[in-house]
């Protein structure tokens, strides 16, 4: 396996920084990313595909006269190629215009300790082990019900590492592991096809339960059969994890980014200290969350990650910053500079966007609803108005709740509204917190959502 060790990675990064400075950069920063993924894929009911992907590269950010230039390469074995990359970054910086708001790369600060982000046993998994995990999941789904067809899914184990160095003396290396298994299913009966139903586990440590994923993906698909149309009216809606993540990703998560706030693109601009959500809602951006999918010692520009209060019992308390947006306001970065591997400059992104869960079990939450809708997934959340938060999406799969119980699957249902109104109308959160992409949250109950049916 082509894995660069910590010492090699750090010395490569430092050398490139020094070279850029020697060649005329006022400041320079190098980010090195490595990813190794072994995966097996399920397609149409069988495991017929397997892959191993090695991706590594280095990106250089050079500052000349308050203008930034960036270049990257995935040719790491060749000193010449790395130097050429540094020179390109310099050239790009010189081609750009000076930015009056540029106040320098981040200073050196001690990194934080993180827990449960690396697990050797994930690295030890062979292709055969992954095939075993995948077939456990597949068999569990198939055993559950004959009407279920597992359309796709898989198991993947990854090793990821990141290193950063800059001309202010920042120097860091961190590595971690991720394992995931997922299964998408449909159920078919008498000409009816259900929407795609999806279940998954993703963890930093080897703690996945493929049998549960398989069973649950199958159970969902079967329960999505015999779907009926429902009346158009305002009602209570329970957003399950995936639906909540889809809805918030393009709206609320953008609204708390300092970059959006400073550029007049956020509905939260000027609202710090104001009530923006229901009292049941408390959100942290927690870059240090135990075992979090986005937990690292430092962010994409070498700033220590931290836990930042965003909304406290409904009151807006803070935004997330990278170094550039923080300095613009005379503040400190919150460690939210994110990188797309070695291919990009830093961008403000949430780490683990954590909704503090409530006390009720999902059953209790449903049990208190006379009439409502349970929504597992949304279609078209990416077409929400990212600035205003207005959305109009298909809820699929979804289930009608009547008298405290799931009555039947619903089809052709749309939800319309505004995300910023939705968070004001949250009346309860369940206790079933899960990690999904950047979101860590339980099911949430929202009052008075416009549901468009028949």
């Amino acid at each position, binding site marked *: 396996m082509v894995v660069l060790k910590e010492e090699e990675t750090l010395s490569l990064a430092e050398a490139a920084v020094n070279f850029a400075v020697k060649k005329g950069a006022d400041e320079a920063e190098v980010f090195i990313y490595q990813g190794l993924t072994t995966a097996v894929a399920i397609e149409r009911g069988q495991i017929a595909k397997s892959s*191993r992907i090695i991706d590594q590269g280095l990106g250089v950010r050079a500052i000349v006269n308050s203008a930034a230039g960036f270049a*990257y390469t995935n040719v790491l074995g060749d000193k010449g190629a790395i130097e050429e990359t540094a020179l390109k970054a310099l050239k*790009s910086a010189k*081609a750009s215009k000076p930015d009056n708001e540029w106040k320098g790369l981040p200073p050196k600060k001690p990194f934080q300790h993180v827990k449960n982000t690396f697990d050797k046993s994930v690295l030890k998994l062979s292709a055969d082990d992954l095939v075993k995990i995948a077939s456990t999941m597949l068999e569990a789904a198939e055993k559950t019900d004959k009407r279920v067809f597992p*359309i796709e899914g898989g198991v993947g184990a990854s090793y990821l590492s990141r290193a950063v160095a800059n001309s202010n003396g920042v120097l860091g290396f961190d590595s971690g592991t991720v394992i995931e298994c997922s299964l998408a299913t449909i159920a*078919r009966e008498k000409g009816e096809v259900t929407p795609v139903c999806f279940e998954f586990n993703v963890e930093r440590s080897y703690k996945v339960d493929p049998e549960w994923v398989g069973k649950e993906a199958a159970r969902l698909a079967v329960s999505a059969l015999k779907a009926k149309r429902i009346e158009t009216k305002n009602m209570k809606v329970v957003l399950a994890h995936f639906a909540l993540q889809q809805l918030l990703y393009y709206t609320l998560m953008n609204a708390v980014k300092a970059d959006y706030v400073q550029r007049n693109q956020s509905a939260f601009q000027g609202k710090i200290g104001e009530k923006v959500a229901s009292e049941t809602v408390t959100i942290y951006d927690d870059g240090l969350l135990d075992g979090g999918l986005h937990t690292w010692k430092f962010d994409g520009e070498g700033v220590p990650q931290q836990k930042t209060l965003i909304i406290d019992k409904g009151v807006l308390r803070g935004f997330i910053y990278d170094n550039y947006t923080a300095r613009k306001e005379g503040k400190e970065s919150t460690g939210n500079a994110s990188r797309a591997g070695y291919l990009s400059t830093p961008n403000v992104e949430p780490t683990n966007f954590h909704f503090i869960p409530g006390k009720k079990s999902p059953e209790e939450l449903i049990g208190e609803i006379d009439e409502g809708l349970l929504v597992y997934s949304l279609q078209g959340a*990416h077409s929400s108005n990212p600035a205003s938060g207005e959305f109009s*999406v298909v809820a699929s799969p979804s289930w009608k709740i009547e008298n405290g119980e799931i009555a039947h699957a619903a089809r*052709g249902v749309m939800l319309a509204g505004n995300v910023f109104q939705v968070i004001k109308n949250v009346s309860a959160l369940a206790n079933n917190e899960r990690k999904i992409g950047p979101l860590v949250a339980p099911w949430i109950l929202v009052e008075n959502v416009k549901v468009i049916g028949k």
Partner: protein
Amino acid sequence: MIILISLPAEINPSNFVPWGINLKDILAKVVDTATQKFGAEYAEIRAQKLFKTMLTLKEERVEAAKEGIENGAALRVLVDGAWGFASVGTFNLETLTSALSDACKMAKAANSKLKTPIKLAKGKAFEDKVLAKPRKNPSQISIEDKIATTSAMAKTILSYDRRVKSCTIDYLDLVGTNHFMNNEGTYIEQDKLYVWSRITATAKEAEILTFSREEIGSTAGYEVFDIETPEIVGAKVAERAIDQLKAKTPKGGKFKAVLGPNVVGVFVHEAFGHLAEADLTLSGSVLMDKFGKKIASDIVTLYDDGTVEGAFGSFKYDDEGVPAQKTLLVKDGVVVGLMHNRETASKFNAQPTGNARAEDFRVEPIIRMRNTFMEPKDYSFEELVEDIKFGYYFKSFRGGQANLDGTFQVGIQEAYEIVKGEVGEPVRNASISGNTLETLRKVDAVGKDFELSPGRCGKGQTAFVCDGGPHIRVKEVIVGGSA
């Protein structure tokens, strides 16, 4: 505009780069080793050298001008009916051989649980060299010029109206060469050339925030900015953001609608196209038992065409070495074709259609659309609108998504009311949804105009595509109103 010209290799020796010659030998060795040493029944390798330039402008500030090099190879083998895949960022023979050994081991691990071995439709062998022939090669345009073009867009947008509050402009150009070889005698060197830009603006008045987006995409060359000039595109984006400030929100419910080419495109792509990707058809999409059957009204004819010159979804050979073609999917309302790779073509006893595409060397080819569109007929725009007492004109989309059960959703960024046969006031944040097959049956008039729009499609990987068609009228769609 001529973009992809194919010349036999020996006619044009000046285009050989030294690493190209060595590379061909290396690829041949790897493919031979796959079949002879590791017992692969099929082996292919894709070696790519890609150069990218990217810019992000936030208002008039260039966030960072970015340039990058990506070298890498993708190896795919079929061993006893199961796929193995490996990707590495180098062309070094030793590393490639070790990646090949990985890929074969991976395939053997996978086939331990195989129920139905994978077979490939017969492929023809091609030897070809496909050169990009841009009038303006993006790699010859200086970074200063690219900054000037995008800055001019930003200037146009920000000076359009004081209520425009921000704009973000992303620019990407990608040039490079793809070397494809398989063990059946195909060897293709094919240039890649893409120029793309996404331009967004927000406007604000009182508590109303609006958002507008346009995309530019071409495989022709940097000359795309001669037609889509910064001034034209900038004004279009800014105007839409401003117009929406005074727009009303739509009523929810079922309405008659006229869809513009841009919305027809995303509907054809999302609502129908994905269901006709043979891998998704086999996965149980609602088209599974509809082949040869009528699913749409008589006036609906749909194509997926990889051969439209300069279009964002065009190429000469796909990533399995199969020539791109114009594929008829629906003829006069009847499903007559699906989009195939070699694996699904074998399952359906059909010919591969050249739809196997991989975003880059990090991923394997999967079935993707190219340029997908509805064929125009004979209605003028006025004729489409004149009989509608009340309905909506959906002109431009924000995003769309489909499900295998045939439910689609398309979010709309520009819409108008139609009142008494005329286009009326603007409407904001509408979306339409419905069941694809029901909606295709409700298409009751098809216009005579035609337009393709570039876009990007996500299916695990990103593919550059176009979609479009004429204006059409639909008897009924579900309009999701705002709360």
